[in-house]
């Protein structure tokens, strides 16, 4: 089932938390469901790249990834989204996720990046595998991601 987009910029803090990493940027996410975890990760990446409140939901793009483990799904999804920004210049405000065991179909809604209107927060070079974590516990789903900046 696709997750419903309900997030606004002011809710970014509730979606993810930056943790102390000396060299790079690390984030931690929690979510009640697996699909929502991936959705929040997609939004977190957009929020690290630009001031998300300035992005209008005008167009949409679809990303599909397949992998045997959730860890690789997370890495590959964020890698594909990073390429969407760096190659196509597309930035998104929200996302919805359709999940299967070994695949994800993610739709992001946003518009072409415009440096005049969208405040760029800084370059993200890559999604690293260092201490990458995706797990399901009694409290829900959690993930930890370190980006090279």
């Amino acid at each position: 089932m696709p997750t419903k987009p309900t997030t606004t910029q002011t809710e970014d803090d509730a979606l993810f938390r930056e943790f102390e990493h000396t060299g790079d940027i690390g984030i931690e996410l929690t979510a009640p469901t697996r699909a929502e975890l991936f959705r929040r990760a997609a939004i977190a990446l957009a929020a690290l790249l630009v001031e998300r409140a300035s992005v209008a939901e005008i167009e949409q793009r679809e990303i599909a990834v397949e992998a045997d483990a959730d860890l690789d799904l997370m890495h590959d999804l964020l890698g594909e989204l990073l390429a969407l920004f760096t190659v196509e210049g597309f930035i998104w405000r929200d996302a919805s996720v359709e999940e299967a065991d070994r695949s994800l179909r993610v739709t992001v809604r946003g518009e072409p990046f415009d440096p005049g209107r969208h405040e760029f927060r800084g370059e993200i070079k890559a999604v690293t595998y260092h201490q990458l974590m995706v797990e399901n516990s009694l409290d829900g789903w959690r993930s930890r991601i370190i980006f090279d900046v």
Partner: protein
Amino acid sequence: MRDDPALTQVANVACLPGIVGYSLAMPDIHWGYGFPIGGVAAVDAHEGVISPGGVGYDINCGVRLARTNLHFNSVEPKIDRLADALFNKIPAGVGSWGAIPGLSIGQLKDVVRDGAKWALRNGYATERDLEHTEEGGRLPGADPDRISERAYQRGSKQLGTLGSGNHFLEVGRVDEIYDSKLADALGLELDQVTIMIHSGSRGLGHQTCDDHLKVILGAMARYGISLPDRQLAAVPISSAEGQAYLAAMAAAANFAWCNRQVMMHLAEQAFLEALSITPKELNFELVYDVCHNIAKFEEHTVDGHKRLVCVHRKGATRAFGPGHAALPEALRPVGQPVLIPGDMGRYSFVLVGLETAMRETFGSSCHGAGRLMSRTKAKREVGGRDLRAELKALGVTVRAHTRAGIAEEMPHAYKDVAEVVEVMEAARVTRRVARLKPFAVIKG
């Protein structure tokens, strides 16, 4: 420091198959991904492994230093004009076109094959520039076909762009000379205006690391390699995957050299325009260009025997001592210049490599001050403070493409680089030549 994750990373690196001697940490060490930043590991060239994580995403991130004939007092009244000219001339790369817009994939293949030589052919370099660049600005063995289409797409508009994060262009003046003979040999004198550029292989390099890391992660089990951190993923140098990565790494490294060379050319143009002077009056000359994220095949003496090793330097600078054949003739009596940027509020250093480096650190030194504070903490500490005004009061004019670019890079987010280079000097790995004080800084 004892609880710092960087130390665990140094220990993890010691697990790499085929490692020769110690897993080394330079005094600017801090927590990276896979390798620590400030890590050096040499592996046997035949029996060892190659690890893209030991090079990093920003393949051939590096620093170059150029000198001029100008003295600080002649530039001081025009600092704002100069900073504006540099800021306008050198794009950061996001949402802006590079200095050389829209290169086709065919043209990019020439760039990654030829490195700084491409810049020479296209009027952005002189023969002398290439002589004063590590490896002559071109690593052999680059195979343009090992770079993915996506990597080319990410790099297509980025030749001649700075990037953000800790990348910068810094105009400074020589404010202290430690060894006048060495300074003379490098053409440095008190109050002389210098330009330092810190940048790398941009999106092309980042994507290349990512692409090959994925392949290598998938191949490791086939070679019976298991490591404590996935980011350390490695395969035998002799394997097909290892050879493919090395050919791609060389290609991305060449892009980086070409990138820094083009930016240096743009900086020269900005100086000429802002100060309305002739090229002869400016006399813009490259002192040296070093890379600090790379894996290189080098011959080192280990336990009394010469041995070919692959030296991974992740946030570490080559620091060959005097007489080394890899140095251009003019620098051979002096030793290799080692360029150590500090933070934008304090100072940077020019060092030279010593013979001890060849014996103790596989000819390697530190690469910078080393971060002390996370970016998150730095932003929190800055809060509502006007860092730009504070730096102006310290005599540093800053122009930045992003607001976060200044806060995250606040001076106290870094160790005092003077202490870092003193450690290297006490260990007789490098010798201090000169200190540079920044007065204009361009940030991505």
